[in-house]
């Protein structure tokens, strides 16, 4: 049985918020840069 879809309070908004910045730490990696 499929769960009933909750149709209340679902304003239109982007499903995926585009990330403009991604950050990674390279601390501990050797030979990078």
């Amino acid at each position, binding site marked *: 049985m499929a769960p009933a879809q909750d149709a209340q309070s679902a304003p239109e908004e982007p499903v995926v918020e*585009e*990330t*403009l*910045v*991604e*950050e*990674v*730490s*390279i*601390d501990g990696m050797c030979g990078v840069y």
Partner: protein
Amino acid sequence: MADAGAGPASAGPAFDPELPYRCSPSVALRPEPFGALVYHFGTRKLSFLKTPELVTVVSGLENHPDVHAAIEAAGVEEAQRPAYLKALAGLAANGTILARETQ
């Protein structure tokens, strides 16, 4: 991401887009097809700037009296500006960009 506030990178003042900013001298920015890679020699953090417009904003900060002017000069659409301000706030928090003295 539960702990916002601890750590040396967050010791600076809060991000204020009304102020002039610049890229940190501890940062190297390398243009890439997707935008740019940013490496911070102090924190050893690598950041990916994922749009060319954001790269233009970040690299052009020092030529503008405040962050809003840099965003406008880069041609960022009005609707996208909150996302850019949020991204820049993150870059300020990790030390990639710094508030500079008003000239």
